[in-house]
């Protein structure tokens, strides 16, 4: 859903490693997706660098909660950047792709939105099913500044295959898309919005 939403929004999508990456590559692959095969925790910081380079560039990040906690420094930098970045965290409470080991950092209930607001995200939402996620993705546009959507999830029964394109091919494909997007004047400018939901 997030992959298709990002494409419709003409946003670059940065996907953290793990099963989420395989799912997006399998079900919603696009040249506008950059897959971080390595660099766990760094999708958000990468998105900030991307968006900071050109004011018309809009980005989204999709990562699991293992990536989120590993990359808190990048998340903090993203939150206060004021850039047009929508950060979606799929929280299933485990390191799913390495064997399902439990993630001991939990942000259940209202703690995730509280943390996100504290870090400086201008819009914060939470969802616990597909309908809720669709509502949150719809609600965070139009807007300006960073948004975080915390999605409470569960392990997926089916594991998608690894994507075929390799890292260099992914980078080249993405850079070409970004170049074309800049040339065409990418995306729409949002309006300030400070509505928070939980």
């Amino acid at each position, binding site marked *: 859903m997030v992959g298709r939403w990002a494409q419709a929004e003409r946003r670059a999508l940065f996907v953290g490693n793990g099963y989420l990456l395989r799912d997006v590559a399998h079900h919603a692959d696009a040249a506008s997706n950059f897959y971080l095969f390595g660099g766990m925790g760094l999708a958000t910081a990468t998105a*900030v*660098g991307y968006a900071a*380079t050109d004011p018309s560039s809009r980005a989204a990040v999709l990562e699991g909660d293992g990536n989120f906690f590993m990359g808190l*420094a990048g998340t903090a930098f993203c939150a206060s950047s004021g850039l047009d970045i929508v950060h979606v965290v799929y929280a299933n409470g485990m390191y799913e792709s390495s064997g399902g080991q439990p993630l001991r950092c939990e942000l259940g209930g209202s703690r995730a939105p509280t943390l996100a607001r504290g870090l400086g995200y201008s819009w914060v939402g939470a969802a616990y099913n597909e309908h809720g996620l669709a509502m949150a993705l719809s609600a965070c546009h139009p807007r300006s500044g960073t948004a975080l959507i915390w999605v409470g999830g569960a392990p997926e029964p089916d594991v998608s295959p690894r994507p075929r394109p390799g890292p260099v091919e992914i980078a080249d494909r993405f850079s070409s898309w970004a*170049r074309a997007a800049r040339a065409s004047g990418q995306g729409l400018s949002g309006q300030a919005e400070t509505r928070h939901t939980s």
Partner: protein
Amino acid sequence: MTARPGLAAAVARSTVDFVCGVPDSVLSDATAELERTYDVHYLPREDAAVAAAVGAALNGGRPLVFMKNAGLGNALDALVSLAVCHAVPVIVVVGWAGTRSDRLGHHVVWGDRTAAVVGSVSEHCRVVGEGPDDGPGDLAGYIDEGFELRQVRFLLVRPGA
């Protein structure tokens, strides 16, 4: 003593258009000079800085990242798994604490290992101020060649260089 502004002059002569990093005392003069030319982004951690540089490069930018040598430990995965793996060029300026007259214990442990750690990431490394071809134009050429060849390239700066 900190790095001379000559490094900043070299960067300004190159095609670098995105500068980010984590502050370092060895590099403080140079980064202050860079702020005259660039919108310098200060990040809370070195791996995030490298990732931001990669993101900038993916969007057509030519990034330079600065950090203290102790930050190389934090930055390694970003350098290897993002920049090198995806063949995204990034110039990395590293303050080389624990060398020359800097004999602080917690600096020397990293000073002794910096060259090896840098060498594990890339064969392209220059020590600023210690080569025959080290004027601003030469360094700018070294930087720009890295972008053209899609390489991670290092510039090491000793205290007082």
